């Protein structure tokens, strides 16, 4: 059984009588331990997909199973608990709380899972160690560079030991060099067995992951456009991915 099973998921927005299909009948499996990128041009529905996968949003149609739980029928409280324990988010704009220091930011998810102060601190320090930020634990986010902020955000995503980590354009706000270092960090986490989903519009970044899913106009593309990627696929899963998409799915 896959870690995430998405079946015929649609997300429809209504704007002034007009129907916008941000996601259109998406079916997708993500296995435990996969390092996967979701790629597509701006406005194609990547973030919408990630929000639904990440239990921040619920689909208009279709079903999602995450780690054995059907989440399209979960209520807001259950979704919050799932986000808290099973999911880690990394955002383009880091989204650290400016008034808290790095350690406190990393502790934040554990605050909402009712973990004691001492354990929180220990685990936050361990996570910061993992991303190479232990020596900055007392800094405010504003005292850090973009790359450092993103590392702190990754530590926050890791700290509750989630089943899956979603990163939405994690390098979008970083220079190339720093961005590469962050991608390297993700690759390393992946090699430690983490399940990571990278959302990006940049084929070069997508090229880092063994498996890529291209999304266009809310649909998973029939065929991965390798010329768009401009690179030869590294992982062996691309043909399988294309094969997965049954016609009419």
């Amino acid at each position, binding site marked *: 059984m896959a870690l995430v099973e998405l079946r015929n998921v649609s997300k429809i927005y209504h704007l002034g009588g007009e129907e916008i299909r941000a996601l259109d009948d998406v079916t997708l499996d993500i296995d435990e331990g996969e390092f996967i990128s979701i790629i597509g041009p701006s406005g194609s529905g990547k973030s919408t997909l990630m929000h639904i996968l990440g239990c921040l949003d619920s689909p208009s149609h279709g079903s999602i199973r995450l780690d054995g739980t059907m989440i399209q029928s979960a209520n807001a409280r259950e979704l919050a608990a799932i986000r*808290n324990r099973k999911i880690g988010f990394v*955002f383009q704009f880091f989204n650290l709380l400016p*008034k808290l220091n790095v350690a406190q930011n990393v502790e934040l998810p554990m605050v909402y899972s009712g973990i004691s102060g001492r354990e929180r601190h220990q685990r936050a320090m361990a996570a910061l160690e993992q991303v190479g930020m232990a020596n900055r634990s007392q800094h405010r986010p504003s005292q850090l560079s973009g790359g450092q902020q993103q590392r702190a955000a990754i530590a926050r995503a890791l700290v509750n030991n989630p089943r899956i980590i979603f990163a939405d354009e994690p390098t979008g706000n970083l220079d190339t060099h720093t961005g590469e270092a962050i991608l390297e960090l993700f690759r390393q986490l992946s090699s430690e067995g983490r399940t990571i989903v990278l959302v990006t519009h940049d084929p070069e970044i997508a090229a880092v992951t063994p498996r890529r899913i291209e999304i266009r106009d809310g649909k998973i593309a029939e065929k991965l456009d390798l010329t768009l990627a401009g690179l030869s696929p590294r992982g062996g899963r691309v043909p399988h991915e294309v094969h997965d998409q049954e016609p009419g799915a």
Partner: protein
Amino acid sequence: MQLLNTIVAGLKEIWSHKARSLLTMLGIVLGVASLVGMSALIKGMENGMKESMVAMGGADKVLIREEDVPADQEHLADQAPGRTMYDVITLKQSAPLVRVVSPEMRVDAVVSRGDKATWPGECVGVWPAVLDMNLHTLAHGRFFSDIDEEEARAVCVIGTGIRDELFGSPEEAGREIIPLGEIIQIRGQPFTIVGMLTHYESEEERREREARAKAPQQQQAGPQRQRGWGRRNWAFWRKNNTVYMPLNTAYIRFRAAGDRDGIPDWRLSDIDIKVHDLSILEPALQQARNVMMVTHRGIEDFTFQTQENNLDQINAQIRNTRISGGTIAGISLLVGGIGIMNIMLASINERIREIGIRKAVGASAFAIFSQVLVESLAIALLGAAMGVGASYGMVKILESITPTGNAPVITPLALIVAVIFSAAVGVIAGLFPGFKAARLNPIEALRYE
């Protein structure tokens, strides 16, 4: 644990907007201060009244007062007998529910000795029952005997106030002065002092006197004693400035020789009674009334004034204070609550993104809601704490301008009630902003710039 974190986070948030939070708290501060101040005033009033009531004879003392005859007896008005010894003796004999009957015959007289003279608080002819009636304690000498009464002897018992005026106060003299056996003039007639009452004072006066005794150097020049006015408790002043003589003495020496019209006036100026127990007050008064309707031949020219009537007046005064204080407090708390709600709405508007982040990492709607609520509660409680501080200051000021007997007293109950009220205001003011924050959609909140 989680709650503690929420509280700490809330306090930090308040601290980071010190000026704004302070302004927001003002309403609560004012509300609590007026609530506590008002109840302190009332408590002070009650204390003063209680002391005065005891000084005047206690809650079970009933005055039989002269009253205009009712309208349907108008034609009998000139036959109204007034209160006389006939009433007193009949009451003693025929009203068993009445425990003490104390007749009084007032003498309007200046009391003098040598070149010193004073108007006593009251100068009356009495029976020994007056000691029980007015809760007097004889400190020195004796009270009047049956022979004093029978022979209408020129003897008197004085209070310490009269002693102070005519013989000097022990405080000034530095020694006790007990003028037993001395002669004083009451309306020009010589009277021998046979007894002196104890010194009466309110709690407040006692404390002041003791403080003065500790720092005797600080006596100021000029007139040293305050009279019956100003900050002194009137009831105690009057009680100390008492001159008692036997009832018969008062009649024979000041009334029997005739009044304005040359007719002896045997009417009493007061009859006070006490019943066996306040629980039988009603039937006892009924009994007394029945007796007096006989002695007055059915002409109802008297009425009973119980301390309850006094209490009613006091209570009305207290009610007024309560209403005005309560209104100010209520309005202040309301305004304070609106202020808090306003500030909380502004605060969550500034923190939409923060709320989105918190939700993304797993904060439930309830966690967000309680965070807002705790913050709003914390503002209210901080305001309440400051209000309590302010009310202590206010009471200090009031203490210096109200009569000492009525010095305001802050009670723990008032503090508790005020704090509970502010807490309620904080919670109510936090509800709507809390709901608003809790319902924020995390995706939109995260996208919010």
